[in-house]
């Protein structure tokens, strides 16, 4: 008879051990990895995420505003806004420097908008990775 081994739930690591890495990871893509001395991985994340965001800007992608309305409008705009903001300093710099591209028709603009959002979403993945490393769940 097979014995089902229940995986033990790991206790949550203290906030002080992972919060700086996650916060720096949000501000600077790969920053959490740099803080945790994973320089190679941090550099790759920095290059990949920054390149994606810059390509999005060069394609004149639009930034989302957190508009609400029906469910789909709210989901797209608020979700897109969260994705944009998750890019950290890249988003803040582009907004502070006056980047304000209206949403226009065309496949290049459309790809640009997606590049900007996905750069932020990839940065969220990098932040989760930094959290797992800082909490001792991953090498």
């Amino acid at each position, binding site marked *: 008879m097979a014995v089902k081994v229940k995986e033990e739930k790991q206790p949550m690591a203290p906030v002080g051990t992972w919060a700086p890495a996650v916060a720096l990871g949000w501000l600077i893509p790969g920053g959490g990895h740099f803080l945790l001395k994973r320089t190679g991985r941090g550099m790759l994340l920095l290059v*990949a995420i920054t390149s*994606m965001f810059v390509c999005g800007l*060069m394609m004149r992608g639009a930034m989302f505003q957190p508009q609400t309305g029906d469910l789909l409008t709210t989901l797209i705009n608020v979700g897109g806004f969260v994705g944009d903001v998750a890019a950290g300093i890249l988003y803040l710099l582009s907004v502070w420097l006056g980047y304000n591209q209206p949403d226009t028709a065309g496949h290049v603009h459309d790809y640009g908008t997606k590049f900007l959002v996905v750069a932020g979403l990839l940065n969220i993945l*990098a932040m989760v*990775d930094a959290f797992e490393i800082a909490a001792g769940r991953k090498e």
Partner: protein
Amino acid sequence: MPKMNLSHFEAAFLFSVFTSVVMGIVTKNNDRDRVQYGAYTFICFMVALFGLGWLMYLGHG
């Protein structure tokens, strides 16, 4: 900032490269697995890209 004008393929190719790099780094525990998973993700993107491209071409008639 200079403007970038890419075709669908070029934009999707760039998207695949950047996404595969990040996916490879964050999902696995050692460098060998990371490289393998990054390459696997990239190949999946390419298969989907060409597959959907042909599907749309053939479906269009």
